[in-house]
């Protein structure tokens, strides 16, 4: 898509579109290729996935610990429920 085609989709001025595209280019979300007199923009949205996933390993690590906590909470609750039946005698 060239810059004019992009600008037609928005009500803002052409220079404003250029500015926006420049920022997106700096972020690596858009690359511009010069072909003759036209400049074609290509969206590179793969990096947006990184924004969402940068925290995923941290979340997984908490998930791992909280799963262990689920298990412990289950144990503690079943222990307190069955306490009257399985009351252990203290060793002498």
């Amino acid at each position, binding site marked *: 898509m060239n810059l004019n085609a992009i600008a037609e989709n928005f009500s803002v001025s052409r220079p404003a579109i250029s500015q926006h595209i420049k920022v997106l280019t700096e972020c690596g979300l858009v690359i511009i290729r010069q072909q003759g007199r036209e400049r074609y923009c290509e969206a590179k949205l793969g990096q947006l996935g990184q924004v969402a996933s940068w*925290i995923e*390993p941290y*979340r997984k*690590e*908490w998930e791992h*610990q909280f799963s*262990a906590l*689920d298990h*412990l909470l*289950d144990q503690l609750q079943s222990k307190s429920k069955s306490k009257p039946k399985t009351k252990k005698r203290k060793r002498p």
Partner: protein
Amino acid sequence: MNQTTLKAEPGKQEIFIFREFEAPRDLVFRTLTDPVLLAQWMNPFNMTSEIHRYDAINGGAYHYTQTDPKGGKHVYSGAFHEVTAPERIIRTFEYLNLPERGHVHLDTFRLEALPGNRTRLTVHSVYPSVSDRDTATRPGMNTRSLKTTLAGSCPLPTAPGAPTSTSSFPKHDETGQRLTGR
């Protein structure tokens, strides 16, 4: 299974962790404040925990070491600002393996009772800087890569003449005491 969700917006110093549990609030609170119970679940990266001190009371303190599967020791300490059973714990947290002291964050644990003997936990952590938060939330980093990250992405205020090389990191033994004179 209940899902763990996070809220961490780019460029902010805070992170929220949300999780619900199929257990009453009193019991969940106990697993956060009783060191014997805590050591049974709070083991990231298959580490094992040894808790040296854990006084979960107003003005109390804690100090523990986690050992990773390769034998590496990771030492943590902090103070309890407020412990109000069964609803709130506010504490400071510091990872003592970092190349320098002072990267302390503040954690607030809120426990909310839900119908059906369920509990919602919200952990809100506030870090001294955005890069502190981003570094702390990249798990599995050893001290060297942390050092690289700290040096590369955020120019940390360093006292003049402060040691900066890898070999002069503060070393800790398993009790977390700084080893000196080695």
